[in-house]
């Protein structure tokens, strides 16, 4: 393994972060009474550490798989560490544990916060907070690959490392084209939502920040009470639409735009994803209405927003779900674990794997009845290899195991079961809010520092889809 190659690519990652730090600082200069020098200083650190390897190292056209793994995992770790510097230097509610948690939550697009007074932050820092979502949404490595002028082979290796097998399905293009499609769809959605929210009455600053958080399926709001602050069905509808779209495979979205056969109207997977989501909304609304929480219209309004929000791993809120009936919480817990589609910006287990799981289950049942028959698995007319099927089943087991271990560790700190389990599921799935002490209108600030650290690791594991981290520890020099 060539350390200088890894360091050089990490330099690119730092330089990319510096761009957004500088934008945040410029905003701070114009919008805040006292500009946030913490942003400028962190940007300069990124520039200095990012430029240094470029001065010393030669260009490398190819990188090995172990190098790719290390670049991706270390890239995320360095980004999260650098991302916490503006928070730490700002102070206030940001202790070391809080700053790291907020940074990891931002970059992994989890959207869990430790802050009680979000509106007390300066504009520059609020923008940086939302930017961490946007950078992390499609993956910082993807952005870096887009701007790299050389290294065709390195691009393929890094893309294979950053994206899971499932995410790569529906992308039948070369690495560079796939990256371009991802970024174009990402930019297009962000722009469309920003303009829509502005028309709906948000100011430009809030519109941009909420778009960043929606398209990245993050969930950081600029308001203490999240989207509930606006109390606007129009704004909620726009955000819901874009949350749903951001939870769909970007390759399928791109296919819809260019009029390809593989589009959101023909994909069985998308249809199933939407049906399951609507079923969840209906069940939650029915229970809320039945238990006299709201009238039918309000029950539908709040359940739609909350189910789509957790089901796409965004995490915005329009109601305090901690007070909702246990049945609705259980339905939403299912969505917190299931999450949205592979190839989107959402995290977690992914709907595709759950869908594949039930298909594989069906195949096994058929196999019991006809032991000598040969069955194949297909999703959207695409044959699923035995290898991918096995990998998916193993991933589900590994995911549940990680979830249980995290819950147990939190429970060991005398945190109640609902808080422990929902916090573990919400962070591993990069969803954001859980229930009880970490519900949609509460925050993670009240948890012990060690719990925040464990949950930060959980968020990173969820974003890196566990396998990459395991692969990292199995690399030999």
């Amino acid at each position, binding site marked *: 393994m060539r*350390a*200088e190659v890894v*360091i050089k690519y990490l330099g690119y990652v730092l330089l990319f972060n510096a761009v957004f730090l500088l934008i945040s600082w410029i905003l701070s200069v114009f919008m805040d009474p*006292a500009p946030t*020098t*913490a942003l*400028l*200083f962190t940007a*300069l*650190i990124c520039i*200095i*550490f990012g*430029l*240094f*390897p470029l*001065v*010393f190292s*030669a260009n490398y056209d190819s990188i090995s798989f172990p190098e790719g793994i290390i670049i991706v995992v270390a890239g995320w770790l360095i980004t999260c560490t650098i991302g916490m*510097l503006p928070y*730490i*230097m*700002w*102070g*206030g509610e940001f202790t070391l544990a809080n700053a790291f948690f907020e940074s990891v939550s931002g970059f992994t697009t989890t959207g869990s916060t430790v802050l009680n007074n979000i509106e007390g932050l300066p504009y520059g820092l609020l923008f940086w907070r939302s930017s961490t979502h946007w950078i992390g949404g499609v993956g910082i490595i993807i952005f870096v690959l887009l701007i790299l002028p050389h290294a065709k082979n390195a691009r393929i290796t890094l893309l294979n490392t950053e994206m899971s097998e499932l995410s790569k399905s529906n992308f039948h293009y070369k690495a560079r084209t796939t990256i371009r499609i991802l970024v174009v769809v990402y930019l297009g959605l962000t722009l469309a939502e920003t303009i829509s929210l502005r028309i709906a009455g948000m100011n430009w600053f809030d519109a941009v920040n909420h778009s960043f958080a929606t398209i990245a399926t993050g969930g950081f709001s600029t308001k203490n009470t999240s989207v509930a602050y606006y109390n606007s069905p129009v704004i909620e509808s726009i955000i819901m639409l874009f949350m749903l779209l951001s939870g769909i495979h970007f390759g399928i979205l791109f296919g819809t735009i260019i009029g390809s056969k593989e589009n959101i109207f023909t994909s069985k997977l998308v249809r199933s994803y939407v049906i399951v989501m609507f079923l969840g909304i209906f069940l939650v609304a029915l229970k809320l209405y039945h238990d006299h929480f709201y009238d039918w219209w309000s029950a539908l309004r709040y359940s739609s927003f909350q189910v789509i929000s957790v089901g796409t791993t965004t995490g915005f809120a329009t109601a305090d779900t901690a007070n909702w009936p246990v049945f609705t919480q259980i339905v939403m817990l299912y969505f917190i674990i299931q999450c949205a589609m592979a190839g989107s910006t959402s995290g977690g287990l992914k709907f595709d794997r759950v869908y594949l799981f039930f298909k594989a289950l069906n195949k096994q049942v058929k196999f019991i009845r006809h032991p000598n028959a040969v069955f194949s698995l297909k999703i959207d007319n695409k044959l699923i290899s035995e290898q991918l099927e096995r990998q998916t089943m193993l991933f589900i087991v590994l995911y549940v195991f990680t979830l249980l271990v995290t819950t147990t560790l939190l429970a060991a700190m005398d945190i109640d079961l609902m808080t422990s389990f929902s916090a573990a599921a919400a962070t591993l799935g990069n969803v954001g809010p859980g229930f009880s002490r970490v519900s949609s209108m509460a925050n993670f600030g009240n948890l012990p520092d060690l719990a925040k650290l464990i949950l930060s690791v959980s968020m990173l594991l969820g974003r890196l889809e566990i396998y990459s981290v395991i692969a990292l520890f199995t690399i030999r020099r």
Partner: protein
Amino acid sequence: MKRKLKSKLLAGFMLLVSLLIVAGSISIFEFLNLGKTVSSLIDNNYKTIVASRSMLEALEREDSGILLLMLGQWERGRGILEEADSLFLDALELAKKNVTEKNEQAVVDSISDAYHFYRSKWQMPIVDTQKEGNITWYEHNIHQDFLETKGFVDDLMTLNQNNLYEEASTLKDKAHRAIMPGIVAIIGALLFSVLLNFYINVQFVNPLKRLIKAIKTHHPDDRLLETNIRSEDEIKELEREVNKMIIRYSRKD
């Protein structure tokens, strides 16, 4: 691109120096901000709080002076009243010049109006009039105005005390912001030193070692040195020159 060893090393050190300069500049800027906050605390709030205390003290003394006049002690009573009046007006003038908070102007104006009304009451003769020893007159005409003026002064003091507390509570954060760039720069410089050391090894020491080893193990039958040096600097140039030298000598032989 061809980069010389000297420029590479210089670039490395320049980046390190720039990190420290920026950290130092930001710390200085934040400390200056901190200093400004402290001085604005003194200017904006503390001076007015002191003036308010003086006004309260003056009002208490004036109240004593009035009581002395009512007891027929004209000379002592007038002396105290004039001294307290001068103290009050000086303090009020200071408060007028130091209006910095929202709603403070309105409170200062209320003090001024209330005091001048109160003052007009005790400036009239008291000794050898019906007012002397008349406690009912004192209670209805003097004491009510005294309490009202005192109430406005209290409001001014509370307003400034609250602002002083709020500003002082931000001082902790400002001090934190002044110190943090320094701490981050120290950690950054340490990491940078490790990185610089790594690159010196990778870019200079290891290629030189490889070159030395290749020269030492070079066999007359071998045509060229194989060092696998990728950089385009003086070390690569040295390798090329050694190879040219080998070719020249092999032709001579």
